[in-house]
């Protein structure tokens, strides 16, 4: 009873605070100065058509590096908590094999999903998308594989190798930007090319390829670890 009253009181107080925030809110009608600078000089300086990508990868690139690090720490934590300790063996459940319809559909759909994921992160600087979205689509493809055939095991060597190489490659590209161009994760050490082409915007596609592969393999490893 006391607990319920406390919860209700907390929610009412928070609701009152939120109400004060909503009532006086006037939506702005022009961009604030930082966004104006990013939108006005992003395409000229960096050669990217997708301004959100330009913000994520170059203007705020260090935050993205921190985010990749946080994702790595959480994946390592999941792997640590759910490891198989000595003396425990894997649970042997009697699983029904999946039907032939599901198996055939997976064989047809899985390459298409992988191609879609790779397309999304390769074209991250031109169309909506990018590394995180492409990586999530790749992990969804792996999730489909795990759901359809519960006895599949991913090849751990390839997954670990891809993940480590992508993470390391991302930092190497950042350091190359420091050595050859303006600063860490500057993308101008490669030629900026013509605006709107696939091979333009300097090192931005390369950075996004590394991020996409890293996020995709990491989420697949987390999914497989949580399955059993």
């Amino acid at each position, binding site marked *: 009873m006391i607990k319920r009253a406390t919860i209700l009181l907390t929610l009412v107080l928070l609701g009152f605070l939120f109400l004060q925030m909503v009532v006086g809110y006037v939506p702005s009608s022009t961009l604030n100065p930082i966004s104006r600078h990013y939108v006005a000089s992003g395409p000229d300086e960096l050669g990217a058509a*997708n301004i*959100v*990508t330009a913000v994520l990868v170059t203007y705020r690139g260090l935050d993205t590096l921190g985010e990749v690090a946080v994702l790595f720490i959480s994946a390592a934590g999941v792997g640590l908590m759910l490891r198989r300790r000595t003396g425990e063996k894997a649970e042997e459940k009697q699983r029904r094999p999946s039907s032939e319809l599901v198996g055939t559909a997976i064989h047809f759909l899985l390459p298409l999903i992988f191609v879609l994921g790779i397309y*999304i992160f390769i074209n991250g600087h031109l169309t*909506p*998308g*990018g590394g*995180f*979205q492409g990586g*999530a*689509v790749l*992990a*969804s493809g792996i*999730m489909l594989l795990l*759901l359809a055939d519960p006895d599949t095991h991913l090849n751990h060597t390839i997954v670990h190798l891809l993940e480590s190489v992508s993470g390391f490659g991302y930092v190497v590209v950042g350091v190359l930007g420091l050595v050859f161009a303006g600063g860490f994760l500057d993308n101008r050490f490669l030629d900026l090319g013509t605006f709107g082409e696939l091979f333009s915007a300097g090192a931005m596609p390369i950075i996004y390829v590394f991020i996409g592969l890293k996020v995709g393999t990491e*989420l697949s490893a*987390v*999914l497989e670890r*949580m*399955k*059993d």
Partner: protein
Amino acid sequence: MMLLLISTVLCIGIIVSALLAVHLGNTVSAAISAGMASLFAAIIYLVLAAPDVAMTEAAIGSGLTTVIFLYSIRRTLTDGTKEPPEK
């Protein structure tokens, strides 16, 4: 006007799904309802002119998060045949 109507329907959908997610007793239904709230939120992000966020929320929020919840619910089912481990 039409856009505002669609957005109102979607926001009501998000709030109803969220209420279902915290109110249902069956944990599997609650997890699926939370995934539904994420899906409606992805459509709202499209209306708000943020396509990158919409793609990310649809793939991660209503795909991977729901599946992770269902996997962990499966691993923590109390079936009657298994003895609880020693304290």
